[in-house]
């Protein structure tokens, strides 16, 4: 890097790029400068005065969080004057702050507590009565206790800048200044809890977590959110086999500190009272609980019979189950049952995209790319609601790198606010509208196109042609629903394709065709709900369902197996940008089994286990890495909780894309298919209740 600035901190000679803040330079050199209001990635505030340092030839102490390094600058953080300033600042912060850490929800992970312990005075000189205000509840998930607030403005900034919501403000001034929500006495917002997470003290607390436990009493399990395709890493706080909290404690993974309401709170479906805990079997027309061995035997017998007489199977997979489960299911269907009637609900036309991009290695964008690219074009999606992490990344890119954002949608979206051009289009006219942006787009040095489910089939091809015609490096994100839609496609859960987008070359029924086929003998549904709003034509078909709840499909089943949720099993999932990440079991739900194990046990019951291989997640993943094109991702990255992008094909996909089958559920922030129905949090917040 050219022209590094040289300066010293505490006698150590250091170098940094011009514009680097003293606080960051110190941190990189391992010198801690305490700070409250400074927060990497958010605008500078200079409000708390905790970061004071002495700078030679400057008359007074300076705030290290707003001071850029300069050539020859001599900074000291270890002088008596600095120590005194820190102590004084803390004393002021504590004037009206209650001194009751033992009853505060933040105790044990509070930045103020730590700082006072380290830099503060041993006792208080303050004998006056403290200014007190009662605690307020702003929403089912957000509580505010004004006396604990140290007015660092982190919450205000993360909501405004990070989320693009701007629901919080600071009202009044001086000693009565406090944080206020956007609707006087309550909040109407994304309910993401980012403000709570970022609060250094116990002023903002979470309705889902407060006063339930202490941080050191929990085990912290890093896994992946199961709600949408963005695949945020979340750390589940677990105690006594219960998930008590969701956050991304160590800011690791593709999402850093980000989580939306679903990732942070909507894990609560897992212990909903309606969770299935024993296999069910239809006895005299009614589903009755039975033992695992009875249920497995009954299904295996049926499968073997139908197979022996050459009957018709239909197998429907899930876009929530793991890659291992999807792979194993398709292997079971194709090799054991000998059927190619295999499908899942498709929500984005990745097949057309891969085919159109044949020969281009790096044309699929990652989550990180969305933060780095010079320009991003959002087509036909309300990202802030449907793909919260992608939206967060683009916003951060705009804030930090002044990225150019373009929008082509039928309705106004949050991205409009920071776009250079927000174009409205008539439904179906996206590409025509995009053409109109051409003069601006050709001037961009590089671009990412993010497109929703209305761009499919021929339109994907046209979009890629358009991208290529710009003559610039272009990458794409094909939006899909749910935690593992990409994985379901990649693992070949369609009649047309084998794992890795190799053509199956065999006919097979799609979901709609299975439901309509009058001669279907067995319908096996793993983690999906195709009979919601639809019916099965084959009256006599034997229906087997694996699910968490008694969904519409499960109600119509002959046998129901209670399955584990994503938080109760290991495995891998592939997110919307094709990044593979690892699930880690956080809790165990009584009576349930992972879908992989259920499928494996069925194979064993049928005497076919040998040809399918062991049903441990690690073994199946090893097989996937070895046999599925593009999945030879570096194992250490995955095992250590990282994300590795797959590179599925580098040639034509020799199979039809079936765009007519593609439809996104368009789940917003407060819905999440069948799981969302069982999340009390999603129903409790105002915004969730308002949804149709």
């Amino acid at each position, binding site marked *: 890097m050219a022209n590094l600035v040289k300066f010293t901190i505490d006698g150590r000679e250091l170098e940094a790029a011009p514009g680097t803040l003293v606080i960051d330079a110190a941190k990189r050199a391992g010198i801690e400068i305490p700070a409250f209001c400074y927060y990497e990635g958010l605008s500078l505030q200079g409000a708390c005065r905790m970061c004071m340092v002495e700078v030679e030839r400057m008359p007074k102490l300076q705030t290290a969080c707003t001071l850029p390094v300069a050539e020859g600058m001599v900074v000291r953080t270890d002088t008596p004057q600095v120590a005194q300033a820190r102590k004084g600042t803390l004393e002021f912060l504590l004037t009206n702050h209650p001194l009751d850490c033992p009853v505060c929800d933040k105790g044990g992970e509070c930045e103020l507590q730590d700082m006072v312990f380290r830099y503060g005075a041993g006792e208080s000189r303050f004998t006056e009565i403290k200014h007190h205000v009662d605690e307020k509840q702003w929403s089912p998930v957000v509580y505010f206790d004004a006396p604990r607030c140290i007015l660092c403005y982190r919450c205000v900034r993360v909501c405004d800048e990070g989320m693009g919501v*701007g*629901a919080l*403000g600071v009202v*009044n001034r001086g000693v009565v200044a406090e944080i206020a929500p956007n609707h006087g006495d309550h909040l109407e917002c994304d309910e993401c809890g980012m403000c709570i997470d970022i609060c250094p003290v116990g002023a903002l607390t979470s309705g889902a977590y407060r006063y339930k436990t202490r941080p050191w009493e929990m085990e912290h399990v890093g896994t992946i959110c199961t709600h949408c395709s963005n695949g945020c890493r979340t750390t589940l706080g677990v105690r006594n086999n219960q998930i008590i909290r969701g956050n991304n404690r160590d800011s690791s993974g593709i999402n850093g500190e980000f989580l939306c309401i679903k990732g942070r709170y909507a894990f609560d479906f897992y212990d909903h009272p309606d969770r299935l805990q024993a296999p069910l079997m239809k006895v005299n027309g009614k589903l009755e609980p039975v033992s695992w061995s009875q249920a497995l035997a009954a299904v295996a017998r049926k499968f073997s019979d139908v197979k022996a007489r050459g009957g018709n199977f239909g197998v429907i997979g899930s876009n929530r189950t793991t890659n291992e489960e999807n792979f194993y299911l398709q292997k079971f269907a194709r090799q054991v049952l000998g059927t190619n009637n295999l499908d899942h609900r498709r929500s984005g036309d990745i097949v057309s995209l891969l085919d159109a991009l044949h020969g281009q290695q790096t044309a699929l964008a990652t989550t990180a790319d969305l933060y780095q690219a010079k320009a991003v074009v959002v087509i036909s999606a309300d990202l802030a609601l449907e793909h919260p992490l992608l939206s967060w990344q683009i916003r951060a890119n705009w804030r930090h790198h002044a990225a150019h954002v373009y929008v082509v949608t039928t309705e106004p979206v949050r991205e409009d606010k920071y776009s250079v051009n927000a174009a409205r289009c008539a439904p179906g006219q996206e590409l025509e509208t995009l053409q109109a942006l051409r003069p601006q787009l050709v001037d961009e040095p590089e671009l990412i196109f993010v497109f929703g489910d209305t761009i499919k089939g021929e339109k994907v091809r046209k979009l890629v042609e358009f991208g290529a015609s710009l003559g610039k490096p272009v990458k794409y994100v094909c939006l899909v629903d749910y935690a593992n839609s990409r994985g379901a496609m990649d693992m070949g859960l369609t009649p047309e394709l084998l794992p890795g987008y190799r053509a199956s070359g065999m006919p097979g029924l799609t979901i709609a065709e299975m439901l309509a086929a009058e001669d279907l003998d067995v319908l096996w549904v793993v983690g999906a709900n195709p009979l919601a709003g639809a019916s099965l034509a084959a009256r006599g078909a034997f229906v087997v369902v694996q699910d968490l709840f008694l969904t519409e499909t499960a109600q119509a089943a002959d046998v129901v197996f209670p399955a584990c949720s994503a938080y109760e099993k290991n495995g891998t999932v592939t997110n919307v940008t094709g990044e593979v990440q690892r699930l880690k079991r956080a809790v165990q739900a009584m009576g349930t089994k992972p879908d992989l194990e259920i499928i494996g046990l069925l194979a064993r019951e049928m005497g076919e286990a040998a040809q399918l291989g062991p049903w441990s997640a690690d073994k199946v993943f090893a097989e996937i890495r070895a046999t599925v094109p593009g999945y030879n991702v570096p194992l250490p990255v995955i095992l250590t909780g990282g994300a590795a992008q797959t590179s599925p094909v580098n040639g034509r996909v020799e199979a039809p894309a079936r765009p007519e089958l593609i439809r996104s559920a368009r789940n917003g922030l407060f819905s999440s298919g069948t799981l969302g129905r069982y999340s009390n949090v999603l129903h409790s917040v105002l915004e969730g209740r308002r949804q149709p």
Partner: protein
Amino acid sequence: MLASYPPGRQRSAVVPMLIFAQDEVGSITPELVQEVAKRCGVQPVQVEECVTYYSMLRKKPLGKYHVQICTNISCLLNGGEELWKRACEQTGLGHKQVSADGMVSLEEVECIGACSWAPALQVNYDFEHLVTPERLDEILAACRKGDYVEKAK
């Protein structure tokens, strides 16, 4: 007004817009907050921040004549405090209180930049310099009757 700020800095217009609107409406109503937020492209809560921060922006209407009496140092030395007490007695009002008929309101203020002519007070946008107790009585009487002549208007 928005045009007088550089592009992208429209939020700078929040405070002046609030002042002008307050002069017209009498106080900052919730509808006004919404409207200003919309025009300046900020969130209503961000307008609320300004309204509650600045003491010259107010959510309740003041009297038709708002009398602000300075008791800061120069005026204090020249009888400002006495003026303030006298005004309170005369009107029966205290700091930031409004008469029942809505004609007069009082406020004790810090330096209003008229130290050379202390003691000074302000009636709405009008300055009154070198105010004597008698002049104060006249001013208050005129305000109550509604015939105080505002030069600055």
